């Protein structure tokens, strides 16, 4: 877990703080700094056959499924070797081979998509489930409502995981919803709505695991809300001056990676050596991936004409 959290952090830092500023990545860049425990904890125990419907701060899911840092960087840099071969950018990627369902920008659209993924499992009597991520802001979308309702009425094996990082772009929670918790809405669909500390990877893992078992056992969908904080601007160009400094300070002390390190150290699961080794490995991996991806070729211009329809 620690490894994937660190790898995600390092890779995203490199993307946001270096490559983007160097002009090597164009367009929007969204990272999940401070929220890594959510994706890592939620995907921890999934079977490779379980589908993951990612959102825009879930890079860890790709790494955990074996998509390489190089492939991810190539994606961000618009290279042919990215998962979308340059057709789309940044986190707008997916891979059926890895059961990773690409999201589209329209927030909330994945919620009913996940219902359909889950439905397909149920109809065929398969034991798979799907985990679907979304942000607090996405919960205002109509498709979010239709999707949760559909999943609950059709008893689809889906676990909806909310990354509640307190903001949607510049808009704080209380201007998005008149309830305190996103999970307060789960009852509107007759589904359990757990609330966990999203910066505690073990808590996330356990809560999602319970929900996954429930779904796998035919108990239908659930929601798990993970409270966390967006430790960056909305995207790389946003300095987040609308966020009170104290909030950043408060949450900085609760950094999920530091916390996991501390508790592993306390449990004697992590020696300084092991930690240094892991840190070194992560940096080296990302260094190498940057090197490789940066030398990866751009797609041919005319490639943009291909692949709109099935090509046999």
């Amino acid at each position, binding site marked *: 877990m620690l490894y994937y959290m660190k790898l995600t952090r390092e890779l995203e830092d490199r993307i946001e703080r270096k490559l983007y500023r160097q002009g090597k990545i164009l367009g929007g860049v969204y990272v999940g700094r401070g929220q890594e425990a959510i994706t890592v904890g939620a995907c921890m125990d999934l079977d490779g056959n379980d*589908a993951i419907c990612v959102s825009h701060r879930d890079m860890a899911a790709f790494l955990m499924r074996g998509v390489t840092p190089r492939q991810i960087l190539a994606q961000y840099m618009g290279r042919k070797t990215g*998962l*979308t071969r340059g*057709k*789309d950018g940044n986190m*707008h*990627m*997916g*891979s*059926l081979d890895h059961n990773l*369902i*690409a999201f*589209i*920008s*329209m927030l909330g*659209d994945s*919620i*009913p*998509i*996940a*219902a*359909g*993924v*889950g*439905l*397909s*499992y149920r*109809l*065929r009597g398969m034991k798979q489930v799907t985990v679907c991520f979304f942000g607090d802001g996405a919960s205002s979308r*109509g*498709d979010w409502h*239709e*999707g949760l*309702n*559909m999943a609950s*009425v*059709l008893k689809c094996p889906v676990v909806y995981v909310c990354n509640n990082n307190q903001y949607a772009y510049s808009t704080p929670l209380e201007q998005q919803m008149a309830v305190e918790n996103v999970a307060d809405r789960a009852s509107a669909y007759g589904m359990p709505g757990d609330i966990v500390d999203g910066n505690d990877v073990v808590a996330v893992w356990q809560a999602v695991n319970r929900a996954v078992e429930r779904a796998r056992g035919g108990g239908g969908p659930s929601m798990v809300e993970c409270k966390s904080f967006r430790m960056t601007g909305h995207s790389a160009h946003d300095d987040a001056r609308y966020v009170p400094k104290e909030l950043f300070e408060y949450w900085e002390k609760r950094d999920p990676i530091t916390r996991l390190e501390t508790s592993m150290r306390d449990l004697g699961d992590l020696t300084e050596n092991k930690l240094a080794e892991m840190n070194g490995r992560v940096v080296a991996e990302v260094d190498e991936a940057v090197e490789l991806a940066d030398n990866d070729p751009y797609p041919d211009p005319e490639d943009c004409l291909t*692949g*709109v*329809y*099935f090509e046999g």
Partner: protein
Amino acid sequence: MGLTTYVEAIREGIREEMSTDERVFVLGEDVAVYGGAFKVTAGMLEEFGENRVIDTPISESGIVATAIGAAMMGMRPVAEMQFADFISCAFDQITNFAAKCRYRWGAGVPIVVRGPSGGGIHGGPFHSQNPEMYFVHTPGLKVVCPATAYDAKGLIKAAIRDPDPVIFFEHKFLYRRVKEELPGADYVVPLGEAEVRRAGSDISVITYGAMVFRALDAAKELEREGIDLEVIDLRSLLPWDRHTVLESVKKTNKVILLHEATRTGGFAGELAAVIAEEAFEHLDGPIRRITAPDTPVPYSPPMEEFFLPQVSDVVRVARELNDY
């Protein structure tokens, strides 16, 4: 064998595909117990069971998205919009999710979204629309508008087998008014192929859906005057059959573009652009459009009749063009 109506033809087409391909299932509002508002899916619940014929809440966007999710996982969902008008509520999922998945990351989305479109039944502004152009302008989709029972069956079967998302507009005016004898054996009508419904030498009328019959009726009327219309039924709008259209124009040298959808931004524009670019030298007269005017579909019978293109409109314009 007896005659099969347009609505029965669609039902048969779906049933046959469900029988031969267990990935195919049907979902939508009131499609199971009730058999669909227009009874397209009548009897399917009894035949295939509730895992393959699924009543859903009133959630057009959710229905389409659920279909997309299942399709990505290997199923072949056929989603009903109770009226095609309500496809507006699923516009985002269709045009942004379904249409772009394959292009972006190679994920095929073999869904069919089908529903009754078109006017002539006094349905008013929200039960009579012809929304095809919203989807024809969206790369990644396919759009089908059958006119005959034979085509309705052959095209729905082709649509279900197609690896890409197909929007299938049934014309509700034709559901029970059009019937014909259908072959017993399995057949499909390939997407993207037009049909010459009537060969003629003077003027090409290019049309689709319920307007095919208006064109044919006009042709019959004009025959007596010695004006010989060629009537082309496009059947598919995306992709559409340029070859058949351009060949016809090159033969007749005069063109009428006819559709029930409103004028501005309608399919006739696309046809006109291609013809004026690729068959310019063959044109012996202006390209004439006959369409509904740019208004919502009115409810009251005299207004709706005025709104819809009539046989007399085709006759009048054909005469003018013939004299040109």
